[in-house]
């Protein structure tokens, strides 16, 4: 049987850096929305940072939220438009460092939303500063000697926190690396949207992504670094399955 794959019409050219994982996640979200028939019924709340590039990258209605507040803005959208498909698209700096209160409160209330967080271990857009997810010893613009976790805390695991502390519908972590991991990630994203469409409640998918520009690596070397040094700490998989 002939394989046929085309980039969804929802998915425009986006201004991410060459080799950045954001572009793959954007395409997977578009594919899932198209397969679920939600391409004309979706509103996205986007964070500040590289996620701002969704403004040109996706053909759905968008709200550009204040830094970190996408969880609160999406809650408002959900309550005003109960029949829409609503998701947030944020980076780790936006959803965790800046907006942990909004992120956790939305999860605590079990709002019927999908939250997609790109975890690339730094604040990408502003030049690669240290974030809560920066790995131990990782050099960034603001940790030039490598992150000292005795001084700054250990890399945070928000999906585990939400899955084990609250009663969300679905929580998973995937990675944009090998084709196999990308295919698994698509399954997680689709589960998150299906949970929302079935009114099951809050779902979060954290996506480990490379940031070749700020990591100072070639795109393929960044993939290998992610698999060897980041995935062992940030385990992949589903932390809260639907219906559990």
């Amino acid at each position, binding site marked *: 049987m002939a394989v046929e794959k085309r980039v969804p019409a929802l998915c425009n050219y986006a201004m991410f850096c060459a080799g950045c994982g954001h572009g793959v996640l954007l395409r997977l979200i578009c594919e899932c929305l198209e397969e679920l028939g939600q391409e004309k019924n979706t509103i996205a709340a986007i964070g500040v940072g590289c996620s701002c590039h969704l403004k040109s990258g996706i053909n759905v209605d968008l709200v550009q939220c204040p830094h970190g507040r996408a969880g609160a803005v999406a809650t408002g959208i959900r309550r005003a438009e109960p029949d829409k498909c609503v998701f947030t698209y944020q980076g780790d700096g936006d959803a965790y460092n800046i907006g942990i209160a909004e992120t956790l409160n939305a999860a605590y209330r079990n709002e019927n939303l999908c939250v997609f967080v790109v975890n690339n271990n730094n604040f990408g857009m502003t030049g690669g500063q240290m974030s809560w997810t920066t790995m131990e010893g990782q050099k960034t613009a603001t940790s030039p000697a490598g992150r000292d976790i005795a001084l700054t805390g250990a890399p945070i695991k928000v999906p585990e926190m939400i899955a084990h502390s609250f009663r969300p519908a679905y929580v998973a972590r995937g990675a*944009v690396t090998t084709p196999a991991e990308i295919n698994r990630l698509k399954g997680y994203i689709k589960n998150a949207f299906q949970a929302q469409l079935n009114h099951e409640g809050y779902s979060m998918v954290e996506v480990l992504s490379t940031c070749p520009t700020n990591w100072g690596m070639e795109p393929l070397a960044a993939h290998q670094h992610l698999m060897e040094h980041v995935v062992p700490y940030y385990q992949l998989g589903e932390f809260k399955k639907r219906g559990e």
Partner: protein
Amino acid sequence: MSKATADQERCKGCGLCIAYCKKNALEMSSHINSRGYKSIRVLPDNCIGCGICYTVCPDGVFTIAAE
């Protein structure tokens, strides 16, 4: 049989598709697209249309379709 085709205008020349293609069916061309990036070229004789390039491409360069 399906084959990959590349929209060179979307390509940023990251080379991930070349690294993951098992059939040596992709190469970097010397063509510079309108955004200033080197872009990828498909070698159709080697391509089996598996779609790996479509999956790993961050920029939606590839279409996999029957010839």
